[in-house]
């Protein structure tokens, strides 16, 4: 089965400085926020995109939604190339790809009621449906009482606002939902509620979900596969369970260890990375992670590692992986 969404060699650039200044300095006027990224999502599958701030994960979401143009590479949705889609073509696509935004309350138009918000996609796309009935159906689906239709966003708690966001994303029966930090700013118990809801929606509706997050706990329980991003590139991709049990890339290992369980006696194998993520404007030579890697050897600073396949669907970019030779 061919993937629903297929991204190949995607490059997204942002201006680093004014063109005149760049020309005077003889510098590159743009930097690559997303550098040569490829992935696919099949219908009904969940992919997690994990990375810290500045890793380029949100840029990928914006590019998929057509809010930011790709510099090069291809994005195919359902077999059609969409990276160069016109405004009209995107209008149609937006019925099939929906997005959940990071800020649960801030992504809801503040002067609209919940009822107006969840039926907003119907209005935009001119669906002549019974909006009252649709609103009731959508709120029921995400577990909100029907009387919430009259509330305004500022009267909602974070978890309730998040449910409204889910309802709105599902209003047009999309085939792909992009969820940017679906649990950001929510309490632990509410996080779990939102994750359960997403998982339930997926099971019931068979949609594909792209989850973008820095929180590994989110990824672990609702994704089938995950991709770890560093400086706009994938450093490791593979089935979620496999990566959790045996990560190959040192960065993945460090991220996993930075997610401690609440047990003072648990083996405190926390790995402290030195320094911070470099700027994508000044990428390190060789392996881009070597400046923070505890296993780095001289070679890492000289030569960039290629992609190594490691069993089914599992790949990483590292000269000296920590998972040993391919087990599969």
């Amino acid at each position: 089965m061919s993937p629903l969404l297929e991204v190949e060699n995607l490059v997204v650039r942002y201006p680093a400085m004014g063109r005149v200044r760049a020309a005077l300095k003889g510098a590159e006027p743009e930097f690559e926020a997303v550098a040569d990224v490829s992935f696919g999502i099949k219908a009904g599958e969940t992919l997690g995109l994990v990375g810290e701030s500045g890793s380029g994960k949100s840029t990928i979401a914006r590019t998929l939604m057509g809010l930011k143009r790709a510099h090069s590479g291809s994005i195919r949705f359902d077999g059609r190339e969409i990276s160069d889609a016109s405004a009209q073509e995107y209008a149609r696509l937006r019925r099939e790809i929906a997005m959940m935004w990071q800020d649960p309350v801030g992504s809801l138009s503040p002067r609209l009621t919940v009822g107006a918000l969840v039926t907003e996609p119907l209005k935009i796309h001119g669906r002549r449906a019974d909006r009252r009935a649709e609103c009731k159906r959508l709120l029921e689906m995400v577990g909100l009482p029907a009387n919430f239709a009259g509330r305004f966003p500022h009267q909602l708690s974070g978890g309730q606002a998040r449910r409204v966001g889910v309802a709105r994303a599902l209003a047009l029966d999309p085939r792909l939902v992009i969820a940017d930090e679906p649990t950001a700013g929510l309490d632990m118990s509410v996080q779990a509620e939102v994750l359960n809801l997403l998982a339930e929606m997926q099971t019931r509706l068979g949609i594909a979900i792209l989850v973008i997050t820095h929180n590994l706990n989110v990824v672990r329980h609702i994704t089938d596969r995950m991709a770890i991003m560093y400086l706009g590139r994938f450093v490791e991709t593979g089935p979620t369970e496999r990566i959790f049990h045996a990560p190959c890339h040192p960065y993945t290992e460090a991220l996993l260890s930075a997610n401690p369980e609440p047990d003072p006696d648990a083996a405190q194998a926390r790995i402290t990375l030195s320094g911070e993520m470099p700027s994508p404007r000044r990428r390190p030579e060789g392996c881009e992670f070597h400046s923070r890697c505890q296993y780095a050897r001289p070679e890492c600073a000289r030569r960039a590692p290629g992609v190594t396949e490691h069993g089914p669907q599992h790949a990483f970019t590292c000269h000296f992986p920590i998972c040993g030779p391919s087990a599969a």
Partner: protein
Amino acid sequence: MTEAADSLLSVKNLSIDFGTPRGALHALRGVELEVPKGRIMGLVGESGCGKSTLAFSLAGLLPSNGRVAGGAILLNGEDVTKMSERELRDIRGRRVSMIFQDPMTALNPVATIGRQMLDIQYRDAGGKAEKRRRAAEMLDRVGIPDAAAQLAAYPHQFSGGMRQRVCIAMALLTKPDLLIADEPTTALDATLEVQIIELLRELQQEMGCAIVFVSHHLGTVAELCDDVTVMYAGEMVERGTVRDVFHNPAHPYTQALLECDPARIKDATRQLPTIPGTLPDLVRVPPGCIFRNRCEHAWERCATEHPPHYAASGPRHVASCHLLDKEGTA
């Protein structure tokens, strides 16, 4: 408590109200807290539990609509709640320092780091050169590379993680007895959070100050703190050493909170545990146990009688739940 002599901070039966258009909101009710010298106390709970209100009140900082409705905050035996603004200023920055969630807003954007670090030493002896040296030393200690040169830098020239290091340096420069850290790692990425936690632990061991560490992240608290206080809806529901509380949680809320931390759940599941229900209205606080409406063990007594602090597993481990009442009807 026996270690009263060691006690640095002792909060007794503290209640704080906020004035709202609907009436007084009872944000904290009868909170007890004991922080001995040189220990790290974690303050955990979900949003609305009052942990940040408590932390701010320890430094005598309350929003304009807040007021102490009862109880005392004893710092070295002196009651913070009874102090004048002048006395409070004297305490802040010298005996009590704070670091905040957002390191950007905690620093003055138009003054250099050096200028701000000199300013907070205004009470200390020594010339300008001496104070600059101390500031540079402290910056170096918190891991700012090329510290002496960075004194001339402005806050916006630092990344988020570095800014939080600067804040920690400033907070510890005056060698306080108590450091209050309000969610200091929430705004940071995971790999930076690890660094900051490690730094705090090292500095604490070196300088011997006590820390009140506010966080909603249980894993971090387990790693850094000696003791932990669990708060729910403005009340302290459980308190004890981290080991006692996290291994043998006595209060149903603590149990539920630990259960729904996804980091604990090792096997992939699509049905994570949650805590159904919502916080009670703190303007009209219901009688009895505050967690009753969300508690699966609740019985008649919980509806009428407010649970006192019963002893739980360890020597200093207490929890407010009638299930622990050994002499009672349970």
